[in-house]
């Protein structure tokens, strides 16, 4: 079951492996595998390829300031996220630093998020909820700058762009760990267990 194929199979090998797995007779092999689908260029995928890496890969040209972001936020975001990102009815976006070990942790961009690039990625792909992907790159940079400023992470005169954003160090970055599970041990005790 666990065939961790670390390297790509050749097209011909792929055909054989799949045929065996599916219980089918061997199919004609050629250099093109199944020959399904059309080749596509990165330029053709431009409208869909909106992800941003933590190294800044995928960030578009453009830039935005804290002040410009404040103006956009107060027009397009405040109804759901509250004044200055304090939340209600939707997620709180600012504050909460120092609360994560308490009984009532306040998880925000500033207190919780490990990477600033994620702010740009998420706002561009999914916000505002009623009109996603309606914001220009400049607007997304500006909103990102404003949200980082609300959390005390960048100065009020900060400009966010493809060079500056990946340089932003998030306060909670070092808290993130990989999955250590299984982490809780029980026994299959049958009698007199408690």
């Amino acid at each position, binding site marked *: 079951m666990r065939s961790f194929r670390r390297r790509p199979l050749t097209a011909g090998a792929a055909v054989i492996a799949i045929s065996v797995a*599916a219980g089918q007779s061997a199919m004609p092999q050629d250099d093109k595998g199944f020959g*399904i689908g059309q*080749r596509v260029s990165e330029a053709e995928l431009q409208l869909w390829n909106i*992800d941003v890496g933590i190294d800044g890969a995928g960030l578009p040209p453009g830039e935005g300031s804290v002040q410009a972001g404040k103006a956009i936020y107060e027009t397009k975001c405040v109804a759901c996220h509250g004044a200055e990102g304090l939340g209600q009815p939707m997620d709180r976006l600012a504050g909460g630093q120092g609360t994560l070990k308490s009984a009532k942790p306040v*998880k925000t961009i500033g207190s919780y998020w490990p990477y600033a690039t994620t702010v740009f990625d998420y706002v561009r792909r999914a916000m505002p909820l009623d009109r996603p992907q309606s914001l220009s790159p400049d607007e997304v940079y500006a909103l990102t700058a404003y949200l980082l400023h609300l959390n005390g992470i960048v100065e009020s005169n900060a400009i966010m762009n493809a060079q500056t954003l990946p340089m932003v160090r998030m306060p909670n970055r070092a*808290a993130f760990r990989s999955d250590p599970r299984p982490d809780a041990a*029980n026994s299959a005790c049958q009698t007199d*267990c408690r």
Partner: protein
Amino acid sequence: MSSRGTIVYGGSDASDEVHDVIREENFLVEAHGKEPRLVGRRAVLRTALGAGGVAAFAARGDAWAEAGPNTVIGLQDWMTTPGRGTGSAPYGLPSHFESAVVRSLTEHTPTDLSAWSFTPLDRLTGIITPNGLVYERHHAGIPDIDPKKHRLAIHGLVERPLVLTMDDLLRLPAVSRIYFLECAGNGYTEVVQMPRSRTAQFSHGLLSCCEWTGIPLGTILDEAGVRPEARWILAEGADAAAMARSIPIEKALDDTLVVYAQNGEMLRPEQGYPIRLLVPGWEGNLSIKWLRRLELGAQPWHTRDETSKYTDLMPDGTVRQFTFVMEAKSVITRPSGGHHLRAHGFHEISGLAWSGRGRVTAVDVSTDGGRTWHRARLDEPVLSKALTRFRSPWRWDGAAALLQSRAIDETGYVQPTREQLIAVRGTNSEDHFNAIHTWRVSENGEVSNALIQA
């Protein structure tokens, strides 16, 4: 568990007004030694409702109790009058007497665009979830996608970036597999929330299981030619959330599928029509619905839903990330919260067990709050990363009982108690909660959610 343990009962989900409801609030029992003792109780009786909205479980008892056998064994209208015509329901629906068996929406979100609805596990049997009852979790509503206009792009660290149409995908060699799908947050109401969920639908219903049909993701990736440096895949949906998650290449090539059908028919819109990813045994959010794009990369993207969400905050302030696998878990679905045992004597205890690490090898059932356990019978088939149905005979003597189930999987992992889990993880993390669950059967046969606290 100390001899001075306290058992707290409670539960309500106001949206579920299906059958007679006994709401028990601030319901406290102290355990002195090993005998639970009732110390306080306030019960509120709500009335039954509507037309035919009674679960078969309760309805059968009602018929005998209220109508009596002489009335039931008689000539009914349906015996003396022809029924409706063949083909009068081109797409058939359940009997209207089952109209209460529906998904129920959470009350915990401010918008139904980003919300979730629960599968009525307490009213289903077997291991397969009917398509219309599969739980939902959407982040920007349910898109209405024209399959003729839908495309799947594969690019990034591949030799041949490709775009596939639905016609292309349907030509490829397909497989059908039965896998469960469970939201990372399934059971979030059982960590600290009060009141607790009244029924198994609300306590465990972010869980479903279908036969999925589609193409091994490895087949599609081989078609594009994965470059050796590719370690992660970004999977992205065509919905308005453009939901995106990073998935390790090993899992993508192991058992991940790109599926277009569930339980024999094309995917429902709520489940990703026309195609979705299906990542077996791992948190449901990874099984990206309305799949439009797969990008291969050398490292994860750290998207919003794998940093801000779907991560686990520990008591020391550290955060567990990429906690993908859904660990072994089980729940008794019958009898369960909201049910009402109307007779002493024999009752079969039945429920579901599952593990994201493989097969369930055993399920134990306790009727005394975890002091003694009995091995349950597992219904065939018992499949890896699928729901497994367990059954255990029980004679109810009329005394209060605390029902629990405990799953063990093929890795030897034993489903932990709530105390064991919280001792490690605290209560600030609501995801991936897989603790043993307790239902209390009261002396009058009502079943409610119970919390045993150390």
